[in-house]
Structures are given as structure tokens and as C-alpha cells.
């Protein structure tokens, strides 16, 4: 799994936020565009792109994109 690609897939769910704003350290729940529907989109994106099931609590327990990436990477292996 590639972190940079994960960040791009993550950023791809957003419409208003500047893609440049996304990095491994981005605290995504602080973004203005973050919403419960966005959480569902991230869960669906991870299922779609990585064939990994994550849950609402995984989103809650992650602060940064790196945190979520680590969860997905661990579950993928």
C-alpha cells in the first residue's frame, strides 16, 4: 500500500477543500467539509479501492490520514 496514493484517494472524496491541503498529518475531522456523509464515503472508498472493511469507530479513533492509513494497511496484510 502506498501512502501517497491513499492520500490522493482520500482527498478525491472532497469537493471544496484544496487537494494541496491534504498530507499524512492532516487532521481530517477538523476540515470544514468533513461530515457524516463524508465518513461514509471514506468507508466506501476504502472498501472499493483496498477491499478492506473499516468501521465508524476506526474513523473516530483516527486523527490524521496517516492514522487511518495505518489501520487499513494493518488490516490489508
Amino acid at each position, binding site marked *: 500500500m502506498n501512502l501517497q496514493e491513499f492520500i490522493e484517494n482520500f482527498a478525491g472524496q472532497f469537493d471544496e477543500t484544496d487537494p494541496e491541503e491534504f498530507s499524512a498529518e492532516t487532521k481530517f475531522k477538523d476540515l470544514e467539509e468533513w461530515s*457524516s456523509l463524508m465518513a*461514509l464515503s471514506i468507508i*466506501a472508498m476504502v*472498501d*472499493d479501492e483496498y477491499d478492506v472493511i473499516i*468501521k*465508524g469507530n476506526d474513523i473516530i479513533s483516527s486523527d490524521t490520514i496517516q492514522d487511518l492509513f495505518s489501520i487499513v494497511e494493518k488490516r490489508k496484510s
Partner: protein
Amino acid sequence: MNTDYNPFSLAGKTILVTGASSGIGQCTAILCSRMGARLVLAARNQERLQETLNQLNEHPDGHVTLLADLTVQEEVERMVAALPPLNGAVLCAGNSTTLPLQFGSREKFDEMFDVNFFAPVELMRLMYKKKLLQKNSSVVLIASIGGTHSFMPGNGVYGASKAALNSVMRYAAREFATRRVRVNSICPGMVDTPLIHRGTITEEQLAEDAKRYPLGRYGNPDDIANGAIYLLSDASSWLTGHDLVIDGGFSI
């Protein structure tokens, strides 16, 4: 005063309940037995089905359990061949998914429609065709407010399957009326069953969502089962083709 008057009694009726091992199906089976019905329970898992059976009021003719995965054609046919004549059926077996529409691939739609639409429709079709549904019998389909009365983001794939079910319900009500078989559906709002506690939506989000219901809470399985009892009983003899919304006022 005659206190025995009970138009909702199910005494003398044999009633099939699918999805009987959990949630709304399990509760419906238990309450129907308390109303005097003889039950035919169907589900995929023997052990969990036995748990439901253990909670039923005893019936002199004995209850029946049938194991079947209703998404598998041969298993539906085998189950239908084993069914006794029925006075009612509550088709509860179903599944849900929370998925934004842009991720609703054909595969995701197929998965949902197989369980929520094709399985109950095929079962109902065969029960009618094989004349297992007796005169004055009642079929109850468990649909949802999603797809007909409510359109919450993330519920499109699920809601579409339930809307399709509601549509077939009305056609069946028209066609089956010739044999005096009634067909109705129940459209529940969010009901507290294992189905909603699978983690896509967190417990905190569920608790917050429940506050949006005018009556202040999510439904309990017996809120829906009691509606099914009404639709199965002779109290609803003149009711067919109706989708009964039981949702704590959510869709108002």
C-alpha cells in the same frame, strides 16, 4: 361484558415467518405465538432458529422450523415444497447497507436486491402459485420508510430495494385478491436490532440520530411485530395493498 373479544387473535392460523432467528422476524414469531398462531419458522442458522423456537408459546399442533438460504433458488424451492398450507406469512429476512450512491456499483445493488427484493418476491410467488396461501390469508412484507417515505444520504442502494418491494406488494395485492389473499407491507423507521449495530454508523451517531424521531426514540422490534399481528389478523380483513408506516413520526 364479554372480555374475550379480540379481533387480533391469530388462533387457528398457521403463519410463516422468515428471518425468524433475529431482530424483527424473531420478535414477530414470538408475539404471533402468544396470539395463538402455529408458526413455521425459516432462517439460515439452525442454532439461532432453535433459540427462537424455545421462546414460542407452545401450540397443540407443534411449530415447524425450516432451514433455507432464500437467495439460493434450490433452497427456496425445497422450502416451499416442505411448507404446510398457510394462513399468513411475514417475510422479514433482509439486509441493509449504508453506502453513498457514487459507490453503489452494480455488484452492490445486486447483493442488496438479491436479499431484499428477489428472495421475498420469489418466495411469495411460489407460495401463491403452489396454492399454499389459503383463502383469506395475509402476506406481510417488511419494507422500510427508506426509498418511499424517506431518502437519507447513504441509504440509496438499500432504499431502492425496499421501494421495489413496496411496488410489487401493490401488484400482488391486486392480483392475489382474486383468491382473497391480502398483501401489505410495513415500512419501519430505524428499529433497534442487530442489523443497525454493525459499526458503519457508530453508537454515538445512532444515539444522536434517534433524537431526530418525533417520538424520541428508535423503534423496538415489538413495535413492528404488533403491526404485523394487525395485518395478519382478521381485524384487517378489508385492508390490502397498503404500506403501513411505523416510524415514530420520522417521515412526517
